[in-house]
């Protein structure tokens, strides 16, 4: 298969205009001994063959819609995506455009991202949102970069809750290798029962940033107001990693006083897709906008007096500032920001509140039923949203294997990340899980506990 629209005759005419005899003659600058390597790759397929090959590969997987009941969450959630979302994403005008550097012919992308920014600020209660990051983990790492820049490297300590997503903590560690940071709180053996107040004693005058998750990795809802006050008293900034579905119901991070609110917006209209691409959102206060990484769309007018939108504050970015740039980031997740904007628009206030409520109700029904089974119980007593830690009578890996034999993904086994939680499963329930699915999970675990 080829997508090259040039006939042999046209090719020859073009070669003549260029003044060379053959296509190969265009590459004289390439060292001869390495020129034109024989690539050992499978022969080309036609579209029909490729479609069938890819179908076969996809069918080798067992997926959470057609084959298995799933209670897996832990940072990626199985939500319903209204049909409209993908219809809009499939518009070639959106998905085959580049970053909107030429605003006169990119107002579609620019206004859509401006609206995405607006939806995120209204959701979090914060003042500004950028045009997005690669995912929730890298958005969190960019919050560390912002804090580092804010204190000009003079404060080097970050206090991080052990209940921030383990992979996010890993990414922060990778990203900050050149900064010489001191980390506190990020300890897998920490007492996981205690609330956010345990972090307060770790915050001091050298602390640049406190990172907490909301709801935390175990699904618990904490009010961070007091912690944030304490952090501010020491001059530190606070970043909250928030789940956007939970924010539809819960007190906003802005009301608690957070300085930066980031998170993974995959739950808003983006398929599970085996982990990506997803959508990192990043919102903050207006006073930090110059230190924020990423693209930013602002409102203006064109020379015909029409309201319009442009990329703004680009002087922060790599193509202008080069090694002094806030970040090297240049793409955002444009198309997925559009997906989440369409998702929020088409569900609207009412539909979104219904989603959040269904998640909450079903998760609580599941938690209630599961904790009635002999040997099982809820690990924590705090309020939770749509995810909770189930304590099992044997190692979580064994429980999950048993469940998988019955066509169920029970949830995320916590032992690898938290040695003290070897027998614990993080269970996520969304609007996609029917009562019947939850009852099946309960039945199967009952059988297991009787065996």
């Amino acid at each position: 298969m080829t997508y090259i629209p040039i006939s042999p005759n046209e090719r020859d005419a073009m070669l003549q205009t260029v003044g060379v005899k053959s296509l190969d003659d265009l590459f004289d600058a390439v060292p001869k001994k390495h020129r034109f390597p024989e690539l050992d790759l499978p022969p080309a397929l036609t579209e029909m063959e490729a479609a069938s090959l890819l179908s076969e590969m996809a069918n080798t997987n067992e997926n959470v819609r057609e084959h298995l009941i799933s209670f897996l969450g832990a940072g990626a959630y199985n939500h319903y995506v209204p049909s409209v979302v993908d219809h809009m994403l499939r518009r070639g005008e959106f998905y085959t455009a580049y970053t909107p550097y030429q605003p006169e012919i990119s107002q579609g992308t620019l206004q859509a991202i401006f609206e995405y920014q607006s939806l995120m600020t209204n959701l979090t209660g914060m003042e500004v949102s950028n045009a997005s990051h690669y995912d929730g983990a890298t958005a969190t790492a960019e919050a560390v970069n912002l804090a580092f820049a804010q204190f000009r490297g003079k404060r080097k300590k970050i206090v991080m809750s052990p209940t921030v997503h383990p992979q996010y903590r890993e990414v922060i560690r990778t990203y900050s290798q050149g900064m010489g940071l001191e980390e506190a709180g990020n300890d897998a053996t920490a007492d996981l029962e205690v609330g956010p107040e345990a972090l307060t004693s770790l915050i001091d005058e050298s602390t640049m940033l406190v990172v907490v998750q909301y709801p935390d990795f175990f699904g618990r809802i904490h009010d961070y107001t007091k912690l944030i006050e304490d952090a501010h008293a020491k001059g530190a900034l606070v970043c909250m990693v928030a789940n956007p579905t939970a924010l539809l119901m819960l007190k906003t991070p802005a009301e608690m006083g957070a300085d930066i609110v980031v998170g993974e917006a995959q739950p808003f209209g983006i398929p599970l897709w085996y982990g990506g691409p997803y959508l990192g959102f990043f919102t903050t206060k207006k006073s930090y906008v110059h230190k924020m990484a990423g693209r930013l769309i602002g409102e203006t007018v064109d020379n015909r007096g029409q309201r319009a939108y442009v990329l703004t504050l680009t002087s922060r970015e790599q193509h202008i500032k080069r090694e002094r740039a806030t970040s090297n980031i240049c793409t955002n997740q444009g198309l997925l920001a559009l997906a989440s904007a369409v998702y929020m628009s088409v569900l609207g206030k009412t539909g979104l509140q219904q989603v959040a409520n269904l998640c909450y109700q079903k998760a609580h029904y599941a938690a209630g039923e599961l904790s009635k089974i002999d040997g099982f119980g809820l690990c924590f007593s705090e309020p939770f949203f749509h995810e909770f830690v189930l304590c099992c009578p044997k190692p979580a890996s064994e429980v999950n294997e048993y469940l998988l034999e019955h066509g169920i993904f029970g949830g995320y086994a916590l032992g690898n990340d938290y040695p003290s939680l070897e027998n614990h499963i993080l269970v996520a329930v969304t609007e996609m899980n029917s009562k019947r699915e939850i009852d099946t999970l309960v039945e199967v675990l009952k059988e297991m506990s009787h065996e």
Partner: protein
Amino acid sequence: MNKTGGTIVEPTIFELSSPGRLGVTMPASDVPETALPPKHLLRSELPLPELAEVDVVRHYMRLSKFNYSVDDGFYPLGSCTMKYNPKINEDTCRLPGFLYTHPLQPIETVQGNLVLMFELQEWLKEISGFAGITLQPAAGAHGEFTGVLMMHAYHKSRNDSKRTKILIPDAAHGTNPASAGMLGMSVLTIPSDARGNVDLKALTAACDDTVVGMMLTNPNTLGMFDENIEKVVKMVKDCGGIMYADGANLNALLGIVRPGDLGFDIMHFNLHKTFSVPHGGGGPGSGPVGVSQRLLDFLPSPLVGIVEEGDDDIEPLYGFITPKQSIGRMKAFHGHFGGGLVRAYTYISMHGPDGLKDISQYAVLNANYLQARLRGTYKIPYDRICMHEFVAEGSFEGSDIRALDIAKRLMDYNFHPPTNYFPLIVHEALMIEPTETENKDTLDRFAEALIKIAEEAKSQPELLHNAPHITPFGRMDEVKAARELVLCCWLPENYETMK
């Protein structure tokens, strides 16, 4: 409502909202009701729009029509490789088996995904000549950062702490110095010579035992393949540095030469440029990184590998492996699987070795053809056989017309402008990359438009100064945007309190 005071062409989704309108609704709950959390944990209001489905569809349809895209026409943005995005990719990446697999599923249940990732790693190794590949980086700049972290880790593992200086040619992409800056490295800019190659004299002077490495784009942003590439690589490696290739311009090299064979140690791919993953209006991209033997142990974790060998009857089991001295994780989960890796896999499978070579040969032919057609009308400061792109000067003697004016006027001829003002070493640069998916007629029309614009620059310069004329929007007041910083909007009823 309208802070900046312009006429509203399309209202925002917030302005279109009307309280009580319903869009997509959810089923009623099928479980017994649980009380909500205590009130002090709940939000008091949710200030989001309320619209019907038809309102939403028409809004986004109208917005889509304000965009110019590859599906609309020629998009010769230099260094961006805006090639046609095959429609079959849109179908394969949405197969339910890919769409609905969770990143934390047991590996036994996602062998299809893992085989795809493993084979893509193998294919990218074969195409580039590297020993190992990570598929994790989310974009080109993310891949660059991954590469710089590996350079840093490599020298650190050898207790070679003197190395703090990174060499970057003046023709490099801005992301290169920004990536190095993220690790606190100092950047030493190496000039280009008159033929657009790395200036060997300047490079000789820069090479010492403080060099971390060199980040080189080849072909560079002038579209020139460095004629001394083997010398450059040898000089940097002889002083203990690591050679990094910016793979943004790989579309010129498929089946032509493998960067690994030239002695490069690291390269990031841009699957959204070379391998037809759509650009999506600014992402998501996908930026896998290849490394030579000596950097294998430093790759990000996890990689996809065979965790249980197969035999005649049993397929091997694919899973995740962690390199010994890994720099760590670059993002959550496994990379841009659905949007990036599946599309790139589909594309490569449909090309095979000969098809890939055709891509680069025709990309280079198209660029040289356009260069030949414009020579004589526009100054080409580095005028030799180019690779997949070339740079012309967008100015004329005795005229105040600038590259920007030419770019904007091109819109009136229904073309997307080339990249302008980059690379910085060319005065009023117009950087033109046609890609292999354009036919001769399109290239001829584009050349004729540029030739006509050169005439207009003399005869009717105001036509260019005020361009574009036929687009839905005119030139923007960028100063106003930066000064007033209106970065979001609200529901009409909240407008007064929020602004």
